[in-house]
Every structure is written in C-alpha cells, then in structure tokens.
C-alpha cells in the first residue's frame, strides 16, 4: 500500500514535545549562574518540597483542562478538605481523632466535592467555569462557617510526620506522596479507560459520544477524580503548616492553571499530559525561587514573572496543533 501517504512531516512537532523541558533547563541554568547555591542538594530538596502540593493540585487540574473544561473550585475544595483533615486528627478544636484515617477521609471529601462540580456542570448544563466558581465560593464559605474564624491547630505529630515533616533518604514525606500522586495520575491517564476518554472528550466530544463513550458520566467522574487530588492536597496543606483554615489555599488556583499551561497543555483540551504539568509546576516553582535567589526588586517581581511566563509559553506550547488560539 505505498499509494497511501501514511505520515506527515512532523520533525518540528517531535522537537516541540521537549520544549517545556528545555525551558525548564534553561531557566535553571540562568538562575544557577547568577546564584550557584541554586544547584545545591539542599535547594533541590526545598524546591521539591515547595512543589509537592502544587504538583498534586495540578494532577487534578490537568485532567479537567484536558477535557477542555476548567475547575475554579480548587481553592474552595482544598480549604474545606484541609479543615476537615485537621479537625479529624488530634487538634485543639474537636475531640474527634482518627489519626491517619483523616487522609483518606479528606481525599474522599475532595472526590465528593468534585463529583458535585461534575453533576452541577453536566446535569444543569452550566459551563464548568461557572459551576466550579460557584461551588468554590461555597466551599470556602462552608470552611469559614465551620470554623467561625478560628484556625484549627494540629497537635497530631504522626499526621504531620507522615504527610510533611518526616524524611526518607533525605527527601520529605510530602515529596514522596506527591511522587505517588503523579504516578497514580500518569497511570490513570495512560492505562485506564477514563484516562483515554479524557483525550477523546477533550478533542471532540461528539465523536467520543458516537464511539459509545458515556460522555456525561465520564465528565462527572473526571471532576470527581480531580477532586480526589485536591482532597489530598488539602491534607498535605494542613500537614505542611500544621493548621487548618479557610484561606489555606489562597492563590493556589492561578498558580495551578499557569503551571498546567506553561507545561504545554492546551486550555482548549485534548493536547497535553500530566507529565507536561509536572514540568510546568517546576518551571513556575523555579521562577518564584529564582526571583528570591537572584534578588529581583520585590515590586517588579510580578512583572518579570509575567514576561517570563509569556516567554515560557511561547516556547513551550505546541501551537502547531492549534489552528486558532483563544
């Protein structure tokens, strides 16, 4: 069958796939040249530690974005789960103590909130932007209402050690957990049915439906899966700072979306991967870390960050696949 032209010239496309990594390496090089202590083992561990929670968050956010949807409930879900987790371990507010069981509890709560996002979005036919925005508001509201303005202080050393402070081979527990979360997300993406269906739905929902994929159910489930990751991020957040409160996830949302996009996942859906987001998270973290290491004037940091992010996306995003950019 020589007559059928099988492949298209894709040299550039293959190269593009590695562009986010190149951006990350370039960035590390620049920061490292200005401040060599960037390359120390200690700093690597510290950056991994800082990246742990954003990584977990981005795993969930990537799935939703790959479907072409968006999840703005990130902060509300994390806050509520963090508050729940900290109220279920030894603390100064409630008498309930279930120790490490609070972690699965937080994860499940996150999953439930995610399902709620999905149900409202799919069943009421509301754009995910609005459904998740509303539920995000409500999540923070509920966390505030439960606490009445106080913070829960966690006194459970086990909880904090297992999720954050403890170290294995010199690497903090949070990093290991984030690593497991990334692995889980990768397996879900590559080796499960809904993982593959995410791409199908994100690329062309109608075709996905015609192929017999239960699109509505999958959408709801994916929001649920994303919620599981936010739930874990909630537990990790509580363990990291040893407290639970309604504002614990402040600024997590835009950081997460920026990381996902900088990593090369398209907001229009279908293109990208959780591994891209891992690179994206590190680009964002190195950028923030580098600002301090390089001693950039505080009030221009936001501006420099903005310009660098534009540059990173311009280099990293495989725009050859996008006919139109929205």
């Amino acid at each position: 069958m020589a007559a059928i032209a099988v492949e298209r010239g894709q040299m550039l496309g293959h190269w593009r796939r590695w562009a986010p990594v190149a951006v990350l390496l370039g960035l590390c090089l620049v920061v490292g040249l200005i401040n060599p202590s960037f390359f120390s083992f200690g700093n690597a561990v510290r950056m991994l530690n800082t990246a742990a929670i954003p990584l977990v968050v981005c795993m969930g956010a990537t799935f939703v974005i790959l479907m072409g949807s968006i999840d703005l409930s990130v902060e509300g879900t994390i806050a509520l789960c963090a508050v729940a987790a900290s109220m279920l371990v030894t603390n100064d507010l409630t008498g309930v103590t279930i120790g490490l069981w609070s972690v699965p509890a937080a994860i499940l709560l996150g999953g439930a909130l995610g399902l709620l996002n999905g149900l409202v979005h799919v069943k009421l036919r509301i754009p995910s932007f609005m459904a998740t925005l509303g539920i995000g508001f409500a999540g923070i509201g509920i966390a505030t209402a439960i606490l009445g303005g106080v913070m829960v202080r966690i006194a459970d050393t086990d909880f904090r050690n297992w999720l954050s402070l403890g170290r294995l081979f010199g690497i903090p527990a949070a990093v290991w957990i984030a690593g497991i979360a990334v692995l889980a997300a990768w397996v879900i993406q590559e080796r499960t049915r809904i993982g593959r269906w995410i791409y199908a739905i994100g690329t062309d929902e109608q075709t996905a439906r015609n192929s017999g994929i239960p699109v509505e159910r999958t959408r709801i489930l994916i929001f649920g899966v994303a919620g599981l990751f936010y739930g874990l991020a909630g537990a990790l957040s509580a363990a990291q700072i040893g407290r639970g409160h309604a504002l614990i996830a402040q600024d997590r949302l835009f950081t997460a979306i920026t990381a996902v996009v900088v990593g090369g996942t398209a907001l229009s859906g279908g293109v990208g991967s959780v591994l891209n987001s891992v690179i994206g998270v590190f680009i964002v973290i190195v950028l923030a870390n580098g600002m301090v290491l390089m001693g950039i004037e505080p009030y221009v940091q936001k501006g420099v960050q903005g310009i660098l992010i534009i540059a990173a996306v311009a280099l990293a995003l495989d725009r050859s696949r996008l006919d139109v950019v929205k």
Partner: protein
Amino acid sequence: MSVPVLEIRGVSKSFPGVKALDDVSFAIARGEVVGLIGENGAGKSTLLKILNGVYQPDSGEILVDGRSVSVASPRQAFDSGIAMVFQEQSILPTLTVAENIFLGREEEFIRFGLISRSRMHAAAAEELRKVHLDIDPGMRCADLAFAARQMVEIAKALSLNSRIKGHVTILLDEPTSVLEQKEVDLLFRIIRDLRDRASFVFISHRLEEVLDISDRVYVMRDGKVVKELSARSASVKDLHQLMVGRQLHHEYYREARQVPPSPAVVLAAEGLSRHGAFHDVSFDLHEGEVLGIAGVVGSGREDLARCLAGHRRPDSGTLHIAGAAVRFAAPHEAAGAGVGLVPAERKVEGLVAPFSVAENMTLAALPRFVSHGAIRFAAELGVARDWIERLKIKTPSPDTMVGSLSGGNQQKVVLAKWRIAGVRVLILDHPTRGIDVGAKEDVYDLIRDMTAEGLAVILLGDTLEEVIGLSSRILVMRDGAITARLDAPPGGKPRQVDILRHMV
C-alpha cells in the same frame, strides 16, 4: 430472502420542523451489500444514525436476526453487531491508532483494571492488516495523512467483525469521499472479502461506486424509500432520476456553456515552492477560464490552493495578480487582492454556522455595507434576498441560521459570499463534496455563470470526471510538481486514463 440480519420496519423520526424519516422499511440479507442513495436531506444519515443508536426512532422497530431489539446507544448497536463509519471523520488526532480503533470498547484489554498496551496493539495490528495499512498502532493519528486516517476509521468499523461472534452489519456513510481511486478499490476488495462474515450498508454520492459494490440499492427521497432495485439492472442515469425525481439534465457538466478563455491573464504563478508540499509550480490563469488541478492526496494541490489564497506562505516563487506582484501573508490579504477560497471543510472554514444566511453572505464584503461606521441592514438584506433568488437557495428567510440549511444550500451561500465580495479569482476546493446531485448541478451552473462574467476559477474537483467536465485546461500534479498540462475544450475533453497516467 431468508431472515434478514438487520431489518427496520416502519421507522419514523421527526426533528423540529422536519419529518426526517417517514415510515421507512429496509432490510439487509446475510452477506449482502446494500447501497443507500438519495439527495442530501433525503434521510440517509438519519437512518444510519438510528441504526447506530445515535438517534432514537419516534416509531417503528429494529430487528436483528428477526428479533426486535432496542438500540439506545452506539455501544448497544455495537453489541448487537452493528458498526458505523461516519461521514464526518471520527478519528481523534490526539489518540493513537490502536486507541482509536478500540475507542469506547477497551474492556477486552483490561487486566487488573488497567489497559494492556501490548494486547491492544497486537489486536490493532491485526485489524490494520485487514486494510493493508502498514503503520505502528502506537502512532498518534495526528501524524497520519488524511486518507490513512480514513482507512483507520474503516479498520475501526471492520474490527467489529473479529469482536463479535456471528454475523455483523457495517454501516459506511460516505467512506470514499476523501479517498482516491486506489484506496477505493482496496476498500471494495476488503468489503468483498468480508462478505461471508458481514453485511454492509453503503452510502455514497458517487453513484458509479454504489452500483459497483452493491447488490441492491435503496433510493430515498424526502424521508421515504421511493425505490428498491437490483444494482445489476440499474444505471447511473436511472439512479439520478429516481433520486432527484425529475429528468436528468442531458448535459451534466454544462459543457455547452464553457466559454473560450480570454487572453487576459488574471493570475500568474512563477516558480512557486513550499517545502514539503510542492515545488517550482508555474502557470497562468486567464479570465473566464476554469483551471482544473488533478492529483492524488499528497500531490500538493491542496497546499498549492491554500498558498494561492493566502492561508499558507510559499517559500519561494512569485505571484502576480493582474500584472502586479503580490505576497500574501494571510487570507485577508488575498481577499483584498480579489482571490477567494471555497474551502473543502465547509462547516469549519466556509460558514459561521450560528450566523444567518445574510450575515454569512456579506461576511467577506462587510465594508461595502457600512456607512458612518454602522452596517446598513436594509442594504444587506436586499443583497441577500437577491442572491438567494439568483442561486435558488432554499431557505425560509435571509435571517435563518445557516447551520440549519442542507449542505448544497450552504455551499451556495459560500459561493454567494465570494460573488458579493466581487473576487476575480475563486479557488474551489472540492466544491461538491458531500452535496447531493441536484445541488451539484446548481453548483456547476453557478461556475459557468461566474466564468461567463469573466471570473477565473481554479478547481480541485471531487472526482476526476468532474475536473474534466468543468475545466477549460487541466494541470496534473504528482509529488508536488506539475506533470502535465492538458487542454479541455468542449467536445475535445481528455480521457480519464490520459490524466491518470500523469497522476500516479
């Protein structure tokens, strides 16, 4: 006929304002290939979508092996032994070949809750072998050429054959519209090979193909089956007549109206090249001529057309419009110079579906309908009404959403858009793809009208026959270069074989 493998009885289906199917009955015997033809809007696609579980019938029943079944989803259809190749390609570019073939039915490869890549790829390789496509199942479909994707699509439908015990039915909704002759031949060979295990329903606008492959043909019109006949005893002309419901015009391609081109050159290409697409292309385009470009997919003709219309940039070479050198960086620059493109992907590039007929018509000429910064709606409506009448566009009103019109009428709106814009050169990329016979003839008439008014047309036809019939001159392309230039005056048309020789 013994018990049909698949039968529908008295099926009706209505959409708001339209009765798409009216008491349709239809049967397929074991191992049979049934052709299904009809103009656009006759109800063929609706019928297939009901068989495939995308739509639910309002009344009537579906029987598989004589038993009444309900087909509530594509998945259920599949489990009942019915698979479909869609008219709009349903291959997802972001997934691999293997994933596309088994999309929505991955469970057979699941071990311990996870998909086994190796099993899936092995099974996919098996299916690909059937369609003689030698590609890696792990390859992303985005990296495949268009025709190869279509073959993957066909492999996907045929995979049903090895998944289901017993007899299966495969629905093919215009599988050949993007295929070249060689691929069509291959497809037909596969269909014939599989007849002991499968039955086929075949839809195509290319009636010769339908007669070639089918045993029986159903003709539909206005949501009803108007005739069922044996393919052996029917001719293309019969089928035309039955579909349209009127006498077929004797002279299909309006050769009599082909005007001798004027000596005035409106567009001249000199040594145009684009890396990986075409190289050193030179030609003149005269006023009032239809210049056909023939070539297989991959010959570079699509890329050439898009370069001429400013959608892509050539790497080298010059382009003159009416004697002046031009370089187009974007479509709007080409349009400004009087070059328009009627794209092959009508729904994506041709029309803004939620816009009204009038809004679409004036889109390329908006500044002309503006005074003091505001659109003159009355003038716009007037022009739209005028063109609706001139092109015999069937639409309730100029304000109707264009997305609700049939394919043929949509294409006329696209043509009207460029006529209103007053282009001097119009590039037609598969202008009759997926539109029915009656509308095709209208489009041919329109092309003759345009050339009579001095427009120059570049035509990338749907079939070779169409290119020959319409063109005054024909360029043949192969592997990115022009391999032949043929004159095609009325009465002195080149034969298909003469052109094919230069194409492959």
